[in-house]
């Protein structure tokens, strides 16, 4: 059984079919990449898994649990964490506080003990901070630890968002364009992190990414989407050389032609 099973899911926004009868399975401990031109419906798939949208038809199951029966805030408690394409951090809070919100699903204390800061609350806080500190070490965020998000550069925010997701110790990590807007060096780091997240932490990764260089290096399987429908699925080389994929990209824009010429992107 796969960890995440999406079956025949369709979602429409008015006249636009953002996701069209999509079926895909993500296996435990693999890195699975979703690729496709802009507007293909990749982020919408993530938002469906997060339960921000409800599909018209189809089913989404995580480890056998029907996600469609859950409210958005119940999804993370199963062990699903995510990042956003346009970075959604808590701006008026420090990096540390942002990561600590990632621990939300592991909280135990109720209201009164928190107001009184009972010893049990302090013990819980220490445990949260220990977990967060491990993430800070892993992602080399020490220099930014006590800085406000509002003043941080883009690349760092991207890493903080990854950190916040990791702090929740998820089983499935959804990364929406983790390398977009990053420098070559930062992309390189992201690649090692994704590798380590899967290998050392045993976390399953589902990611959306345009950088085919990165996709080819880190992912086990790739699924290409266009106009909400599946074009091709397989290993990175299989998908990259698939005729339908090549056609979809050549047909969509001139940018992809130049990108193809460079061989770095689809």
């Amino acid at each position, binding site marked *: 059984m796969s960890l995440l099973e999406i079956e025949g899911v369709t979602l429409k926004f008015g006249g636009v079919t953002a996701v069209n009868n999509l079926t895909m399975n993500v296996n435990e401990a693999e890195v699975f990449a979703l690729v496709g031109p802009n507007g293909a419906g990749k982020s919408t798939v993530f*938002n469906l898994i*997060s339960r*921000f949208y409800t599909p018209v038809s189809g089913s989404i199951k995580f480890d056998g649990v029907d996600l469609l029966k859950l409210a958005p805030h119940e999804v993370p408690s199963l062990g699903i964490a995510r990042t956003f394409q346009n970075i959604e951090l*808590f701006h008026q*809070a420090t990096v540390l506080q942002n990561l*600590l919100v990632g621990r939300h699903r592991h909280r135990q204390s109720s209201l009164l003990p928190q107001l009184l800061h009972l010893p049990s609350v302090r013990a819980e806080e*220490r445990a949260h*901070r*220990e977990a967060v500190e491990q993430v800070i070490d892993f992602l080399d965020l020490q220099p930014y630890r006590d800085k406000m998000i509002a003043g941080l550069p883009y690349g760092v925010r991207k890493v903080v968002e990854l950190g916040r997701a990791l702090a929740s110790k998820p089983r499935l990590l959804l990364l929406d364009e983790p390398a977009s807007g990053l420098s070559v060096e930062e992309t390189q780091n992201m690649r090692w992190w994704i590798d380590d997240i899967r290998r050392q932490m045993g976390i399953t990764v589902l990611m959306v990414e345009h950088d085919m260089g990165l996709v080819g290096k880190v992912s086990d399987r790739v699924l290409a989407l266009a106009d909400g429908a599946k074009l091709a699925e397989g290993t990175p080389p299989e998908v990259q050389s698939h005729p339908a994929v090549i056609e979809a990209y050549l047909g969509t824009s001139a940018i992809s032609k130049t990108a193809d010429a460079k061989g770095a992107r689809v």
Partner: protein
Amino acid sequence: MRFHFKTSYDDDIRLFIDGWKFSLYAALLVFMLALPWLIDDFYLGEANNVLIWSVCGLGLMLLTGQTGQASLGHSAFMALGCYSCVIMMESGVPFIIALPMAGVITGCFGALIAIPALKLHGVYLAIATLALAILADDIIVLLEPWTGGVAGKVPPDIEVFGLTINRWGNPTEWYYMTLIVVLVCTLFYRNLLRAPLGRSFAAVRDSEISAQAMGVNIARTKTIAFGLSCAITGLGGALMGLFAGAFNNETFNFLLSIQLLMMIVVGGLGFIHGAFLGAIVIAFLPQFLSIVSDTMGHGVAIPGLESAVFGVILIVFILFEPMGLYGRWLKIRTFLELFPFARKDMFKRQKSYLKTERLR
């Protein structure tokens, strides 16, 4: 500039970041405790007034500054706190129980009010809560058998452990009583900030969408924020009514809500210090204005001057210093600490985007 070398997780959890901060606040506490010997009864009453406003402000700060939910209905909760406390006192409940109970009652009511208000955001929430504040006046009149209606109520003297506390007879005891309430509320507020609940408040304020993606139940969090906020403001309202010595349906006028909101904006949204700084401004502005108009306008009272001046101050703050007095102080402090290395654009405001369409 002081550097903090952190050696344990507790360094981030404890109330005071270092010995210096601890001594600073300890000195402030000693000063507050010594105040009755330093100033006369009139000014002690003013200080008491500032503290009472601070309690009300802390309540609204928790909701608006911490959780990002505007409320113009807090005068209604001040009224509820006041009436329930005094009614309990009149029916023989000891004050030491009546006051916290008034907070609890107001908190529960606030949480109830939050449920229909959950769907509302920003200006709409402000308008809906304003309606509540305006309604409160009529409700108090309608409930005359309990509230005394237009004639109002004169609260009995406060009795704590056999000690009678009367505003005119025992100003010092009154002041200490308020100070205790302030300290307890501030401690609770601080405790929240270093616990998961306080962080989920901030998460809801800054991004509901990613708060949800982290497992924060938005509806529940807002309800708790409303409840706690109203509980604290209810305590403040009770103290305010008791301190006034008499109150009726007009005492907790909706204008009080607006003043309260202005107060926390001017003080600095999202900072505990902001509630106190704002309270100082709001309590001393009338005095200041009367001194100014005495020297300038031959003592002629100009109607509405106070509100007008406060409105102008508010607009100036929103335009030029949205982080309020406390934000201004933080900038000055950082500038001094870094001198001469402060960069000019260090505090430049980030452009914030509309919250719609951010999911794609």
